[in-house]
């Protein structure tokens, strides 16, 4: 049994030795050149001239390329075709690549590219920077989206209590530790090979082929591992792959483009910030009767994945709650900023936190414990989401009840009240928040995967699949699945680099579906090989197929014979049995109508809940997470060590999003700096560190290994996806801070606290509740 085991990451022993190669670590081919990008200094303007000669005159420069050097279409957009590789005619955000310098060394390329401010002559146009400005100007990258059930307006009007407000959450930089990188190597007959740090090799292949004017079969993209992705390398690895490939094709030399961290911040997009306006009707117990919500995101200058992000946000406004009458409107604001993109959760967190904030506010208005109001609104048996999917695997009530007990929620609530009654400066806060997260791509056709399994004559097994390894342990899980299917030790299974020449037409490793899809496809391939071995053995040794059993590298053939897996493989090879197979998987039962926003977009839901306790300094707004207790539903976990790692990592990452991670663009003050991202490096953009990990961090998987903990959907070994859902768990941190701020004002006033809850925002809220 290799599935369900706590195995370390397949590369862990290499990671710790610095022996796991990332793209920049690969030996460079002779003649390799290095690229750097010349970036727009302003947020919006017409390009009236490019003085590239002054760039070409810089030491070591071999070539300077601009839009006109791209042989095919100047486009790297994943959905719409509004993403130029290099700006042409107009610049649409500060940091947009306008030209590419190719030089002998990376340092020379960067120094030459830094002349962009002198080389790019522009005529400024007025920029739109914020979602509010975009909404006011009706500037959107996509048509608005609407989802409705029942009559929200009537329900609100008839409700005993009403609530109206506006709110916001900030964006978030992925901050993958390995920055964007592509290394393009010309191949015979005009072909191109690209090492790309990407979550989506197939899309990179197609976009590189497109910009080079080649057919896809002439372009090969490979990714062994990424130093983190988090969504940031789903679509936005494309610009760098395309630039490297265009330069390599033009110069017929290998070209590497590795971004400096600051350029990575300035060029690429990130999690969308959201603005909300809502009107709610509720009853005296806190039951939501009607809800109308308008969401406006900051999409940036192009569509990128903003449409699917908004769809997921709309489909997660309900979170774990039954909303009988609801109307949700989503606008993807077009702004002169980096094009925002995927980031773990993909709009889900932005949708779900809106209802959590509303329920938190309702509870305070009614003087009730927020947990009681949450519980009152939980989905029950037979309920359906606003988009028409039955919530038929709901475990939220039981899960929350267990966490309420194990975390001593009620007792701690009383202890905290006692502490706050006597503490002059410091106030504590507590919150429990639930998670329900839909698993599958909303776009049905993306829910497919392929795999290739080879069994070699020595019994070793090689696996290739369409998913990418970004640290989440996908390759480890897939190896476990294949080892399980073939009854061999996991050590005998090796998963290789993702390669568009091995598996075609893959989907991005995204939407938490990596192991769901690729695990199934690899399992399908392995089972086909096993079936052939079973057929061969049962025939040769004249036993029933059911009597051929594979276990721990051994094959029991009835009572007749026991041999090693390798021995059987050798016999099968000599008998000309095919020992390799492809595998395929398409998630069953999905449907989605994007016009009505109705259907069954998700194969199943993942659930979880967290309790967080914080302490807040009412003099400075500084705060600290003292304890977090988490119960998360990973179904029957394929690898509890990896899933716990996903939950913990997502928790701290989500906590960073909601608290210390703040993006600051220069405001629209008419200056040339307007729209410049000031927080473009870790010196100014602060992600959590070891001291932000709470001293009590109790993370458990819900009923892992128990029959009623299994995924009801027929997933790979009844597991559940664990990548994104836990990112919503640290909502509890934010609402615990809100609770502590509320305590500072004697719980009289709803704290006007939006995310990110920086120390400054917290102090402002403390001041407000004490006014």
């Amino acid at each position, binding site marked *: 049994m290799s599935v369900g085991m706590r195995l370390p990451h397949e590369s862990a022993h290499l990671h710790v030795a*610095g022996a796991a190669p990332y793209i920049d670590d690969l030996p460079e081919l002779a003649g390799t050149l290095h690229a750097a990008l010349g970036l727009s200094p302003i947020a919006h303007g017409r390009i009236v001239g490019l003085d590239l000669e002054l760039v070409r005159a810089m030491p070591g420069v071999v070539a300077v390329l601009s839009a006109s050097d791209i042989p095919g279409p100047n486009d790297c957009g994943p959905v719409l075709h509004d993403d130029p590789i290099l700006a042409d005619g107009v610049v649409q955000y500060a940091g947009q690549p306008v030209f590419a310098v190719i030089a002998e060394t990376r340092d020379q390329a960067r120094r030459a590219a830094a002349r962009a401010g002198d080389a790019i002559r522009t005529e400024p146009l007025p920029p739109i920077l914020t979602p509010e400005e975009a909404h006011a100007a009706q500037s959107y990258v996509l048509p608005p989206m609407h989802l409705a059930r029942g009559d929200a307006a009537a329900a609100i009007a008839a409700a005993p209590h009403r609530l109206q407000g506006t709110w916001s959450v900030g964006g978030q930089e992925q901050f993958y530790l390995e920055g964007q990188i592509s290394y393009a190597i010309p191949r015979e007959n005009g072909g191109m090979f690209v090492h790309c740090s990407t979550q989506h090799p197939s899309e990179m292949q197609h976009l590189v082929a497109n910009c080079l004017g080649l057919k896809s079969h002439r372009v090969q993209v490979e990714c062994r591992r990424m130093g983190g992705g988090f969504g940031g390398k789903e679509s936005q690895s494309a610009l760098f792959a395309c630039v490297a490939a265009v330069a390599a094709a033009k110069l017929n030399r290998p070209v590497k483009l590795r971004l*400096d961290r600051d350029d990575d911040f300035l060029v690429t997009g990130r999690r969308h910030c959201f603005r909300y306006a809502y009107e709610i009707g509720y009853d005296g117990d806190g039951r939501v009767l009607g809800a109308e919500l308008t969401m406006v995101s900051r999409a940036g200058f192009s569509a990128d994945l903003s449409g699917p992000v908004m769809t997921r946000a709309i489909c997660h406004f309900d979170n774990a709650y039954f909303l009988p009458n609801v109307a949700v409107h989503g606008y993807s604001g077009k702004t002169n900023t980096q094009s925002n993109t995927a980031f773990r959760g993909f709009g889900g967190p932005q949708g779900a936190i809106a209802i959590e904030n509303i329920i938190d506010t309702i509870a305070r208005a009614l003087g009730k414990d927020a947990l009681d109001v949450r519980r009152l609104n939980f989905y029950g048996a037979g309920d359906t989401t606003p988009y028409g999917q039955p919530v038929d695997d709901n475990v939220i009530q039981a899960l929350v009840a267990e966490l309420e007990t194990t975390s001593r929620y009620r007792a701690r609530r009383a202890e905290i009240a006692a502490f706050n009654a006597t503490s002059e400066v410091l106030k504590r806060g507590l919150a429990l928040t639930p998670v329900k997260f839909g698993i599958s791509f909303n776009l049905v056709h993306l829910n497919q995967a392929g795999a290739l399994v080879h069994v070699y004559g020595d019994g070793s097994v090689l696996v290739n699949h369409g998913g990418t390894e970004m640290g989440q342990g996908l390759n480890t899980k897939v190896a476990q699945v294949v080892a399980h299917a073939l009854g061999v030790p996991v050590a005998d299974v090796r998963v290789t680099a993702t390669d568009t020449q091995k598996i075609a037409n893959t989907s991005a490793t995204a939407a938490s579906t990596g192991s769901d899809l690729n695990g199934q496809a690899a399992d399908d391939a392995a089972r086909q090989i096993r079936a052939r071995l079973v057929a061969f053995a049962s025939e040769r040794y004249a036993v029933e197929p059911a009597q051929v059993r594979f276990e721990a590298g051994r094959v029991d053939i009835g009572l007749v014979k026991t041999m090693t897996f390798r021995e059987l493989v050798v016999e099968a090879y000599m008998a000309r049995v095919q020992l390799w197979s492809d595998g395929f998987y398409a998630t069953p039962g999905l449907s989605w109508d994007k016009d009505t926003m109705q259907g069954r977009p998700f194969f199943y839901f993942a659930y979880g809940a967290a309790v967080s306790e914080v302490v807040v300094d009412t003099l*400075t707004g500084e705060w600290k997470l003292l304890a977090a207790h988490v119960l998360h539903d990973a179904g029957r976990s394929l690898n509890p060590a990896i899933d716990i790692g996903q939950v*913990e990592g997502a928790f701290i990452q989500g906590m960073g999003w909601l608290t210390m991670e703040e993006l600051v663009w220069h405001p629209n003050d008419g200056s040339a700096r307007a729209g410049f991202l000031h927080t473009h490096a870790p010196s100014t953009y602060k992600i959590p560190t070891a001291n932000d990990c709470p001293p009590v961090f109790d993370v458990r998987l819900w009923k892992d290994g128990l029959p009623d903990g299994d995924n009801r959907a027929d997933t790979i070994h009844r597991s559940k996806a664990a990548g994104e859902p836990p990112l919503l768990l640290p909502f509890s941190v934010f609402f615990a801070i809100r609770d502590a701020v509320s305590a500072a004002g004697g719980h009289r006033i709803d704290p006007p606290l939006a995310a990110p809850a920086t120390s400054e925002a917290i102090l402002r809220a403390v001041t407000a509740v004490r006014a």
Partner: protein
Amino acid sequence: MIDAPTMPSRPIRFFHRGGVVEVDGAAPTRTVLDWLREDARCTGTKEGCNEGDCGACAVVIAELPGSAHATSPELVGGLRLTTTNACIQFLPALDGKALFTVEDLRQGDALHPVQQAMVDCDGSQCGFCTPGFVMSLWATYQHHAARGTRPTRQQLADELSGNLCRCTGYRPILDAGERMFEAPMVALDTAPARAALAAMRSDETFRYTAGDAAFVAPKTLAAFAAERLARPEARIVAGTTDVGLWVNKMFRPLPAMLFIGGVDELRRVERRGGVLSIGAAASLEDAWRALVARWPALTDVWLRFAGVPLRHAGTMGGNVANGSPIGDSAPVLMGLDAAVLLRRGEAVRRLPLARFYTGYMTNRLEAGEFVEAIEVPLDSDAVVRAYKISKRFDCDISAVCAGLAIALDGGVVRVVRLAFGGMAATVARAAGAEAALLGQPWNEAALAAAQAALAADFTPLDDMRASAGYRLQVAQNLLRRFWLETRAERPLASAEVSVFETLRSSAP
């Protein structure tokens, strides 16, 4: 100007991977990281940010201890081992030292206990930050192994303040830090490096040139003062924790560097008469450790000052001379009534730090003059507190940093120093607020007057770290915190006013 082409030059020599490496022809600003990755093809050390903020490039530097480090807690087998960020260290600064990287840890295929613990505790996910964490943990392991101690979990978190991980949430890495001591101890054989460093040791000024650029590293105070006088345009560097960014991010030319880090006399932190003398080249870590030994209330600012590798590389003298309004040394030192000792050739003068700055990043240093030492009076009876406020606890630049001192006489304020960073173009004392308190009883009315005066004392910065309004409100509130901690009736303990102290005093 240093006349680079005609200056004598010898190759940079340092110990790496079992032998002495000689480097010639590389620009003096070539970073240790670029040399490792591009020239030595040791790609285990990663570049995450190229500005010293993420720790993916953390390596360990070893040196023979000079007089400044005879009893350093970083001594391991006769060498002083400290972590540093390879991305902002210039190669010539390695001269005469040993460089340990992640490639040095495995013995054949056998992982070092630090590495094995990281594997066993699931301490890596994407693995990109991992070599940096491994090196920070390895340094911690060596320091504790040499002393026969083990770090607490809180100390481990503090040791990792300069390393960012985006995947794990840190719990498994902290577990690994505890687990690494459970395996049989693997001692570091320092003999080869020690022998090599001893053979390279020299009191001769090290001169290195490449192209038009020069790096000069005197070894004695007298030699340094003479070089400074002869070459007033040269940029004095030590840990290049700021200058490294000028090169990596701004591409500023640095034709002449005068390295102060090789002057053992200037790396000392010692009591001299009634003062603590902090040599200009003393590391931030050494300086803060000495200050905290005298004033434990400074612990919080020490731990929050940059990250561990930056505190080993950077100097308090550099932090003070650099004169950033958001540097955290100056407000604390001004609160302590420190002076700077300035030397020009043989001439030495002493200036109160509060009078050192003349404007944004400008000071009273004259051509050829340099900060020799910082002198902190030790005999003060003032009660001292230092507070730092920033978005994140670890390794963040202050919104406000305050160094506050007060002495009472019969309940009346006899001495008061209120110094703030982040509140003006320079770190400065709050003259109006101090005046509002001096001679007054230390009570809530006087506090209110001082808080009000702060608004006139300062025009705070307004940027992405904090708004001007927040900075002023926090500065005023920090005065209140100070009063709450020092008032005569029911003074509050630090754990009652600081969320971090709460944690440190209550954590298991």
